[in-house]
């Protein structure tokens, strides 16, 4: 059985409109940030989630943890239906599911010391009987993420971005969770620091047997550390599968263009670019049919009308595109 199972999960944000709009029956503005998503995460694996800014990655991560109450759908964790738990059960569940945030500055309360921040989960869940025990546990986990004992009584502003991210990781880990949503934990960091954090996260996973949902917009990062990858576009998953498979043989035109856009050190020469015109459409008024059709170089008239179904295109590899059968590829190397 999968550790985490997400079925038909949707999260819609309702716009604030005036009473007169309501009276006159004007349509409500709804942001369909996450739309009818199914996915599973096996114990011990890393599922990478990739997509452009605003496509709903963070929303999906938060909806799974019920940090934002899902509009629709079901989340099952280790057999328990998370979306149906009462507040007390939910609180207990929170110990087992954690999150690491993108912004190392905003995710730590500037008025609390490291010891307080990291010790908070212990206090909330009564995981330490005495203050001394709590402190000991905090010190242990901090040491594990690479913070020195002398730094425990400092405040977040006295740390660099990378160190702050370590504090955030320690906080997520101190209650010994099984599953962690990593919401772009390295995006804000410099390359050299980013590598440190990635290495740390991988080590911790191995040691503690963790499972990650790893959100990133950097295909290189996902390609490096994830076992499976899900590609999101406008609140929907357009392609999902084992990382090697998807990277080697991307089937959805969006995945393909995403990959071709990544500048890579190794490709010192010029590559042929898949040039996507235009920007991500507003989730307020998503396009009809296949949501990618407005930017897709392969789009036909049918794409604007028919919503593509998710199809299996290989072992554990699914994609949703009307032209899958044609086996088209946008990617081709320009001969050097």
């Amino acid at each position: 059985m999968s550790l985490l199972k997400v079925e038909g999960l949707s999260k819609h944000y309702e716009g604030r409109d005036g009473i007169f709009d309501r009276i006159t029956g004007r349509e409500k503005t709804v942001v369909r940030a996450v739309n009818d998503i199914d996915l599973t995460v096996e114990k011990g694996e890393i599922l990478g989630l990739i997509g452009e800014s605003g496509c709903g990655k963070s929303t999906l991560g938060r909806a799974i943890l019920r940090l934002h109450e899902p509009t629709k759908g079901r989340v099952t964790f280790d057999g328990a239906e998370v979306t149906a738990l009462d507040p007390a059960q939910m609180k207990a569940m929170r110990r087992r599911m954690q999150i690491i945030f993108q912004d190392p500055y905003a995710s730590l309360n500037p008025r609390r010391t490291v010891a307080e921040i990291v010790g908070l989960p212990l206090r909330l869940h009564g995981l330490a009987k005495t203050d001394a025990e709590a402190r000991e546990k905090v010190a242990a986990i901090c040491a594990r993420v690479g913070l020195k004992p002398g730094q425990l009584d400092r405040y977040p502003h006295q740390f660099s971005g990378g160190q702050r991210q370590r504090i955030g990781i320690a906080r997520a880990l101190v209650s010994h969770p099984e599953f962690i949503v990593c919401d772009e934990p390295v995006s804000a960091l410099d390359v050299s620091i980013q590598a440190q954090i990635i290495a740390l996260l991988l080590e911790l996973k191995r040691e503690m047997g963790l499972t990650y949902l790893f959100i990133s917009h950097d295909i290189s990062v996902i390609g490096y550390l994830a076992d499976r990858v899900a590609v999101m576009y406008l609140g929907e998953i357009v392609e999902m599968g084992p990382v090697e498979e998807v990277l080697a043989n991307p089937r959805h035109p969006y995945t393909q263009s995403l990959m071709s856009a990544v500048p890579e050190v190794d490709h010192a020469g010029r590559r042929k670019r898949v040039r996507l015109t235009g920007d991500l459409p507003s989730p307020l008024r998503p396009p009809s049919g296949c949501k990618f059709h407005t930017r897709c170089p392969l789009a036909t008239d049918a794409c604007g009308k028919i919503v593509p179904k998710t199809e299996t295109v290989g072992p554990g590899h699914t994609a949703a595109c009307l032209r899958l059968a044609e086996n088209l590829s946008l990617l081709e190397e320009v001969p050097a």
Partner: protein
Amino acid sequence: MTADTPVASESIFRRNLSNFAANRLAMACALIVVLFAVMAVFAPWIAPHDPNETDLFRRLQPPAWIAGGEWSFLLGCDALGRDILSRIIYGARISIFIGLAVIFVATTVGILAGLAAGYLRGWVDILISRLVDILLGFPYLIFAIGLMAMMGPGLWNIILALAYKEWVIPARVVRGETLVTRELEYVEAARALGASRWHIMLREILPNVLSPVIVVATIRMAHVIILEASLSFLGLGVQPPTASWGSMVSDGRAFILEAWWVSTFPGLAILLLVLAINVTSQGLRDAFDPRFSE
């Protein structure tokens, strides 16, 4: 400025305080405020005379340095022959007490209301925000006068009358800050860890919205002191013979042509204290709001 080496466990609060201490003008003014406070507390030991001792033969006696004055009545006497200096010293008690009490009540209520509105949103927010709108739509003085008329005179009633509307200001500030803060990731982190609403509001959000509130509170305290004086001016001040600076100015204004000292000295006292509080609060803001520090 010399480089200050970071202390091992330096909180933001302490860092801000040390920023503040570096601002010499603000420190001087904070000192003045403290001096006024000391004066208020130790009034009985400092004041040269009983502030309520009337002596009709000293009616409107001028300050010492003017012909007819006496050094033992340094700033002269009021219409009932009471020593103005002593009354100013005792008056500090009332002005500072009213200022502190009003601000304390208003800030406490305002913080709770603002936190609830900003964090809980929904009908709580609607209710509080509407109430705030309604109270803001009321002209302050009319509201205070109306309340004073309703509740009758008395120190506590003055405090209530001023606090009834004063809480709106911290409430608005806190609500605004809370709306911003509640979206920050560390609040979300606390929620992800299973923290309750109370924990989040009081332990995570509150400390972070406190510094704007402190700044606003000091500014408003200066304002409240003037407002109390205005109430006295309109005849709704503290009860005689208690000296309040406002009532001293107000009573003395009738004599301004023939005995300027009766209202001028308490007026200067108000000016000085309010000025000192304002400068202090500005220093606090500069120190506590990193956007203004260089």
